[in-house]
Every structure is written in C-alpha cells, then in structure tokens.
C-alpha cells in the first residue's frame, strides 16, 4: 500500500468512533501494543527534542526502504507515534520526504500536531522526514 492508501484506511477506521473516549481508548491500546524499540536505541541520541514526553526514534535502511521503530514513555504519545510508524515505515526515502500527513487532522487529532511545547509529534514528523532526506541523499 502507498502512504496515502494507509492514511485513507486509518481515516476510515477512525470514522467508526462515536466519541473522544473511544478514539483515545483505541490510541491507548495501540500505544500498549506498539513493539518496543530495541533497548540499545533508548539513548539520548535517538531522543526527539522538544517534547514533554520522551520519544525515541530509530531509522534504518532495509531493501531500499526506510524502516522506523519508535517508543515513548507517555502512552497516548506512543499510540500516536505508532500511527506515524504505521503510515511512514517501509517506504522509500523519497516517498517519505514528499509525504503530506493529512490523516492526523482528518481523524480529529489536529491538536496533537500543533507546535506547542507540549507534544513531540511535530518534532517527530520533522525528524522522520529529516532521516528520509538524509538517507535519500546518501543513496
């Protein structure tokens, strides 16, 4: 599936939620299920700066695709992070760098993308694209 196809599927999934509680319960569940990042990557150098919760992000090249793993110590953040990984991981560096992440707004979580100090999502998206751009340049 392309990045946009994944986004559209998520938007569809989220349309079934009746209220904020169901939505957040699902995100919390995702957060609890997200495979933990390899312990060796829970270091300062993989920390995304500028968040209230700690977010670790690791990127690697695999068969010409960029693979992300991530973790956070706040479970809602972790859930949102797992959505980002679901959408962006396993695609070419070029596709990631070019991507427009419209799903966050469309599933009603726009406040988590606002550039306040509180959330690292903006920083994380930036970092994922930076990694993609860097890997693209290396290729």
């Amino acid at each position, binding site marked *: 599936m392309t990045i946009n196809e994944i986004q559209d599927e998520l938007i569809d999934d989220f349309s079934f939620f009746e209220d*904020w509680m169901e939505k*957040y319960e699902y995100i*919390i569940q995702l957060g609890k299920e997200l495979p933990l990042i390899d312990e060796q990557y829970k270091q300062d150098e993989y920390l995304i700066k500028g968040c*209230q*919760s*700690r977010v670790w992000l690791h990127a690697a090249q695999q068969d010409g695709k960029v693979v992300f793993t991530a973790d956070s110590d706040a479970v*809602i953040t972790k859930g949102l992070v797992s959505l980002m990984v679901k959408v962006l991981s396993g695609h070419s560096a070029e596709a990631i760098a070019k991507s427009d992440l419209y799903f966050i707004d469309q599933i009603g979580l726009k406040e988590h993308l606002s550039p306040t100090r509180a959330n690292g999502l903006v920083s994380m998206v930036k970092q994922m694209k930076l990694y993609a751009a860097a890997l693209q340049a290396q290729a």
Partner: protein
Amino acid sequence: MEQATALVSFDVQRVREDFPILSRTVNGKPLVYLDNGATTQKPKQVVDAIQAYYTDINSNIHRGVHHLSQLATDAYEITRRKVREFINAGHEHEVILTPGTTHGINLVASCYGKAFVKPGDEIIISAMEHHSNIVPWHMLCEDRGAVLRIIPVTEEGELDMETYRSLLNERTKLVAVTYVSNALGTINPVKELIALAHRADVPVLLDAAQAIQHLPIDVQALDVDFLVFSGHKMYGPTGVGVLYGKEKYLEAMPPYQGGGDMIKEVTLTKTVYNDLPFKFEAGTPNIEAGICLADAIDYLNEIGLDRILAYEHDLLEYATERMLEIPGLRIIGTAKEKSSVISFLVEGTHPYDVGVILDKLGIAIRTGHHCAQPLMDHYGIPGTARASLAMYNTVEEIDALVAGIARAQAMLV
C-alpha cells in the same frame, strides 16, 4: 466530610459571576480552570477597564501636553500609587512598572550585576526556582565571572535552611529565591531567609509571581530588597509587572534599557539619565495593562486578600484530602506551608496522558516541568501534572478534577 468555615463563608459563586469566561464550555463540558499558576482569568471590571481605556483616553503617557495624554498619564501613575499601597513600599519611586516578572529579574541581574558583582563573587538561588529566576543569574555569572550557589530542596519540597546558612559568606552578593514555588506550592520562610542574609550584609530578591495573588505582602515588614511579580497572575492584564527595589539599590544601579522617557537630557555626546522610577522605564510601556492593573488591585482589595487566603487555604486542604483518596496518586510537594498548588503523579501513567484526558473533560491543568527542570531532575521525574487554584475555584470543581483523574487512571493503567 465537614466543610471548613472559609469554604462556606466565602461567596465564591458571587465572585464567579464577575468572571464571564468561567461559564464557557470546553470540548462540550463546563470549563474547570485549574491552571491559575500559568495565568489567572480577569474579572469584567478589568476587561471593561481595558476597553474603556481604548474608547476614552488612549494616549501616550509622560510626554504630551494635551488633555488625553494627561488623563492617561494620571491613570498610569495612579497604578504606581496603588501598587505602592498594595505592597506597602516606602516610596512610589521604588515601584518600577515592567513588562513582567521575567523582565524584572533580568533587570536586577543585569544592573545590580554591573554595579555590585565582581569576579569570584557569589549569587545564591535555590533548586526549586523557575527558569526565569535561574537563567538570568547563569547569564550574570558567565558575564561577570561570578559563581552560582544553590540552596538544596528536601524531599518534602522545602528549602534546606541549614545548608543555606552555610552558603552565606563574605563573597555572597545576592540571594534570589521564590516566595511561593510554582511547581510545588511551597511557601518559603522568607522572613528568616531575609534576616539571615541581612546579618551577612547580603540583599535578597524575592520572586513573588506565585505569592502576590495569594498572600498579603508588605515589603517593609519583610525588609526585602527586591520583589518582582506579574499583573496577569493576579487577575490583571498580561504585559505588566512590578519590580520593587529599595531606593538605595535602585539609585546605585545603572539603567537597563536606553531610550525615550528614561533620560533627563540627551546631547550627541552624552546622556543624563532620569530619576527613579523613570530611569528604568524606557520607551512606551504597555499602557493599557499598566493602567488596568489598578483595577485588578481594586478588585482584590474589595474582596480582601485575607479572606482570599483563608478560602484558598481551606480549598487546598479539601483538594489535598480528596486527591489522596485516589490509589496510586502521589503528591509532589508536601511542605508544611503551601499555597494553592497541587503537583501530582498517578502511578503507571505519564502526566502528559493525564493532562490530555482531563482536557477532554473540560478540565484545564498544566503538565510538564513547569519551567523548573532542575527541580524535576532533583525528584528524578519527567514532570508532574499540576492543578493550581484561584479564589474562583470551587469544591465542585475539585470533585470534578478527582473524578477526572480516576477516569484517566482507568483508561491509562
């Protein structure tokens, strides 16, 4: 639970009627505003006064010869007089109107620093300070080659006064400490602190940003040398604050910003600075905020700071009791003397997650390090969730907070 007297006798619903924003909804729920440590809401008396300023007398101050400028100037200086009375300063010219607390502290760090601090001198602050009362001192020390000494904080969130005593020496040039901690709610023993410093011939700056709206302050009784606070945390407008300084220090300090209003005479080769307080008030200030700070002071005086203190004390006690009923909830900051702040952690959760869920329930709290990273490091925690109370919060709102925390806990753990 038996209700403490002040909770019953303080007419909080009457007060709430003066604050239109308190009847709005957030995410479809009634707003429960518990982020007063960040900023307070404004009574319509202040809101109306701001509008009236712009519709009736808007004009630049201290400059004009025309009628409106006279009205605006008079109104601005009335604020200065009312601030002097509010904190019982000795002279009006000891009251400097600033953009806020942070500006005031930076002013003292810069100007007192230039006048009095030499390489090898020491500045004492505490480990519970807000960044605004840490960073300017870092900058001063770097700039003047001085050394920063830190008063440690106990597990309960009180100052380690024993160590403080030992830190004072002949190289100490200033002690800068918070009156009330924004992160813990601790009320520091400022009289003792000041007395000890003065015995060592050292002046003291108090950060009163979280005290001015909760406790009556008398700067002469405290004998404090510098005091700073902001209007927006005492039900006044954003963009104005106060630096109180003893005349003898303010006279000896060079100006902070240069420009209009702070001069007596300017030629191309030199400048003669203006007298106090104008020496430290360069340029056009936030005029409407300065003028309408007087309305906030009037409002507080009408209610009475003593009655506010009694009510908030009982409300804090109620909130503390109720929150401790929640299993797994830990309060950070358990000093014997506290004011209006409850910082907490819920076991198995991150404060950010709790804050997000409470927000969905219309409850506004603050999460994170509260601009006190060193303090959070001291406790080894990423941050806390903080509820900070004001005189318009109610028992029912505390109940809503407690129910909200329980709900968040159920969802997250």
